[in-house]
């Protein structure tokens, strides 16, 4: 029972173009969402988050969009850079709890 799904295992994008990574969730109690980036042999590092009271949060080249009715969120990276090549995980949490649920990840490859 996968409560957080990342249906695209991999994505390739040309340098300078937009990367869009998608994440779907099933539990309507989730109200805080995060994106993490992971390089090989390193732990995940926090990238950006969004609370369910918002539908968009932006931080430099990274923007997260939340569509609560569709239970869908996406991460946009513009412009994409080769250093963005990594595995991206989305995670979800119900406020007041501590159990973060992670998706299976999407491997992004940015081609120079």
């Amino acid at each position, binding site marked *: 029972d996968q409560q957080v799904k990342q249906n695209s*295992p991999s994505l390739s994008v040309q340098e300078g173009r937009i990367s869009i990574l998608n994440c779907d969730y099933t539990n309507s109690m989730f109200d805080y969402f995060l994106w993490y980036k992971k390089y090989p042999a390193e*732990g*995940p590092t926090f990238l950006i988050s969004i609370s369910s009271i918002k539908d968009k949060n932006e931080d430099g080249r990274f923007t997260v969009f939340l569509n609560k009715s569709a239970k869908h969120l996406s991460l946009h990276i513009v412009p994409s850079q080769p250093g963005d090549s990594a595995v991206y995980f989305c*995670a979800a949490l119900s406020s007041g709890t*501590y*159990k973060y649920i*992670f998706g*299976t990840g999407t491997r992004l490859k940015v081609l120079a």
Partner: protein
Amino acid sequence: GAGVSQSPRYKVAKRGQDVALRCDPISGHVSLFWYQQALGQGPEFLTYFQNEAQLDKSGLPSDRFFAERPEGSVSTLKIQRTQQEDSAVYLCASSPQGPGSNQPQHFGDGTRLSIL
């Protein structure tokens, strides 16, 4: 260093041996989490500590897995009588406050455990 530190980075053990994995969270962080990450999967929750109290161990796969954080800082995950299916990366994460504060976790680089 200022980050979460895990040791060893790599551990190879024979089936049936006991192993102990260590996590040094960021100083002062209240919350500490252990995750198991299988190849091609996302981190799966194992257990959660708030200071020295283990509030949730529902993710531990069997009673061969045991975690402790006796003084509310360093934590150890112990696996007894290891099996091949225990092979995975074990990640530790910490965050400054307890539940209800909606904050990102800081992860260590993990321990890659291989059971032969």
